[in-house]
């Protein structure tokens, strides 16, 4: 398990570090505590557009990528409903260049009109490529609209519609930047062939002059408890029907979170897991079926998604899933099955992770409260008890906690 070093600058920037001497590289990751949940419903997709604009030039650096590439570095970024994350992988000789670039764009962008114009268009093409022009590309969007009535999780990161992105003005950009991009709203993590002492020096040198900023307060309320079943049925031009059943579940900060994670692992961790074994291989009623937990920080979800065989109606498919759930609620999980899931989880986590994955993961756990959770996750997952899983299943798998999506092939 890696030793995670940690300190903070006076302006609130948290800095994490793990040393790995086996690599010639260093990963520099900055996680900003801002995501699509901070958007207004009338202006969605903005957090993600902002991520693109972070590459459009900063106060002293007209072109981020040119400098990064000259330093032999590779970089990328992504946005979720909760966070906006940027990472750089650089040769160990050029770590300071990554610090310089990240500090400069945290200090201020140059707010180029040309960049805004082009990136609005690029993001619209991304929207089409990933969602609109792809079979099943709107499934997650439909699920969110159903599962959330108040919380901004009701829209997906890419946004609700193209026009929201097209209508963005430079004033929107500046407002967002100065009320979210700030040392006191970010976590810097560095993993690779560099010492903690060196990191401290570099962090002070490049980031300590960036002022504390007033962060926009989160105005939304938690999602009210769902009290009755919700259903949506759509028809689309797709080759097969798709059935989704979504249940509210403990979120990642809740003590039962790992129990819900374990539960979905029992359902569908791998080929021998229950749903695949029963519904695909034994009964031959589904082409594929999968269960997993959602990845939203504040609200947990358990997903069950399956594509039925072509001679199985979507109603029958739903019934089969419900039967599977009922059977599970009334069963006991044998120790061998528990151990199988533990072994699989341990095996996954022991597989050597890349430096940028480690850098992101420790920053993410720090955002949740403590980077040490990174080192505790195998133990937490593997100490879940069989009877607690059944208890949780009985609690969450009830009709009034469920949103059902029937995504049908056009007849």
């Amino acid at each position, binding site marked *: 398990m890696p030793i995670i070093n940690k300190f903070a600058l006076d302006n609130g920037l948290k800095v994490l570090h793990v040393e790995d001497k*086996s*690599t010639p590289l260093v990963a520099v990751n900055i996680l900003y505590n801002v995501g699509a949940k901070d958007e207004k419903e009338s202006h969605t997709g903005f957090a993600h557009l902002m991520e693109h604009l972070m590459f459009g030039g900063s106060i*002293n650096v007209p072109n981020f990528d040119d400098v990064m590439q000259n330093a032999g570095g590779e970089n990328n970024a992504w946005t979720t409903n909760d966070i906006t994350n940027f990472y750089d992988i650089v040769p160990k000789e050029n770590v300071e260049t990554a610090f*310089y670039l990240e500090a400069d764009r945290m200090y201020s962008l140059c707010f180029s009109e040309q960049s805004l114009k082009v990136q609005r268009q690029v993001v619209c093409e991304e929207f089409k490529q990933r969602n609109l022009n792809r079979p099943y590309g709107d499934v997650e969007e439909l699920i969110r609209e159903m599962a959330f009535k108040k919380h901004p999780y009701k829209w997906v990161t890419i946004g609700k519609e193209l026009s929201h992105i097209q209508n963005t003005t430079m004033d929107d950009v500046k407002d967002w930047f100065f009320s979210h991009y700030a040392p006191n709203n970010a976590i810097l993590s560095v993993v690779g062939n560099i010492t903690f002492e060196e990191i401290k020096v570099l962090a002070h040198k490049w980031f300590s002059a960036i002022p504390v900023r007033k962060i926009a307060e989160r105005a939304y309320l938690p999602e009210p408890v769902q009290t009755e079943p919700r259903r949506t049925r759509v028809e689309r031009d797709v080759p097969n029907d798709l059935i989704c059943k979504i249940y509210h579940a403990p979120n990642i900060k809740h003590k039962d979170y790992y129990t819900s994670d374990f539960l979905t692992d029992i359902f569908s961790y791998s080929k021998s897991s229950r749903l695949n074994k029963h519904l695909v291989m034994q009964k031959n009623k589904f082409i594929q079926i999968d269960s997993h937990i959602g990845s939203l920080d504040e609200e947990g979800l358990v997903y069950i998604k399956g594509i039925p065989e072509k001679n199985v109606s979507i109603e029958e498919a739903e019934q089969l899933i419900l039967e599977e759930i009922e059977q599970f609620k009334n069963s006991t999980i044998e120790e061998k099955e528990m151990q199988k899931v533990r072994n699989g989880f341990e095996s996954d986590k022991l597989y050597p992770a890349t430096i940028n994955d480690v850098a992101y993961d420790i920053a993410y756990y720090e955002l949740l409260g403590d980077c040490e959770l990174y080192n505790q996750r195998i133990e937490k997952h593997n100490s879940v008890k069989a009877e607690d899983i059944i208890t949780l299943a009985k609690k969450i798998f009830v009709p009034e906690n469920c949103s059902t999506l029937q995504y049908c092939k056009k007849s």
Partner: protein
Amino acid sequence: MNAIKPPIIQEPGFFQFPDYQDYRLDNGIVVHCIPFNSLDYTNVLLSVKAGTQCQSKLLQASSTSRMLREGCVGFTSEELAEELDYYGTSYHAATSALSTEVMISSVSRHLPKMLPLLNSIVFHPTFPEREFGITREIGRQNLIHSMQEVSFLANRQLKTMMFGEEHIYSKSASPDDYDQIVLADLVDYHKSYYLPENIEFFVSGCFSDKEFNALNESFGKLQCTNNAVPDLAEPAPETVADVRRFCEKEGCLQNAVSMGCVSIAQQHPDFLKLKLLVSILGGFFGSRLMSNIREDKGYTYGIYAQLVAYSNMSTIVISSQTAVEHTDALIAEVYKEMERLINEPVPEEELEMVKSYYSGMYLQQVSKGIDLVSDYRVKALNKIDAKTYYSQWWNVLHSTTADELLQIAKKYLKPEAFRVSVAGKR
């Protein structure tokens, strides 16, 4: 932050591709190994010369490899899945033109239990009828799903245009072909090609005496004959005459564009310089195509050019997706960028940037550790020594001049040789 001085960029030091070693099992089967003995994880990749090039009908080779895990002597499909999962072992099988790879990844302490199972999976599959029916239908549905994607359609059509309709690299199955394949085809294919003399191993991660002995115990006693499949010559490509083809896909918002031509083999002395040239054209975010077509014009989310190596040839392929109305403009810009590379030397500043970027990428590639095993295998199958290949690439990155690149562009970047495949809306 006023008047700050940017850090001086340093040239990164060389990092060697890790040492590797070849071993032989008692019966002569070769084991290529990249050891990382400090890890407690091992990847074992069994490579068998059973690719699509040997098949007598479409889907025969891939259906055979797909069915391996659906049952073997001593284990039903369900029992096999339970056994692999219980030990947290991940399993994957894939078939390409030249070969099939079956890989297991396991915590090293479980490896001695997993290797006899691997033997049984590869050499004693039972091909049960019921599971065959299920996996065949899943395969067909997955293909139907892929055919909804314009990028899939454009790439598939481009292969036909570059290699010709009947070439092993372009022939692909339609959903109806799944009706033609029967269990007997798999049994025949397995009997002819899944032979001990046709296999070799690629291993990465922890590989001490203990792991070697376990491998030898499971595979070193197999009888090898001299009937190994000879290396088949790659058929010559027969590029079609028409320059542009269109594949209609109703109701789409974006078109997929794939452009490509056949080029020199990776054994050719100019290959790595051509790779550098194609990288400048469209290999990374700062490439000519991305800078012009995404970052300047905003026509696309991404556009990339790649030099793809086959046994005795390669292809230069450019692919992108764009709004229907920008399709022709995007294609015109790609030709313009090719012409620029043919007619003007790459400015020094740009060349330095590209070389620096790829030096960094080189470090990422060779420091992947345990994940190097697949890359190492692909090189080995084409008789290329990975260590030599990478050190030559490092040298090319450090020595190639703008003038040399101009000559390479004039010689190998032939706009008239490119075929253009578009899928989507006219």
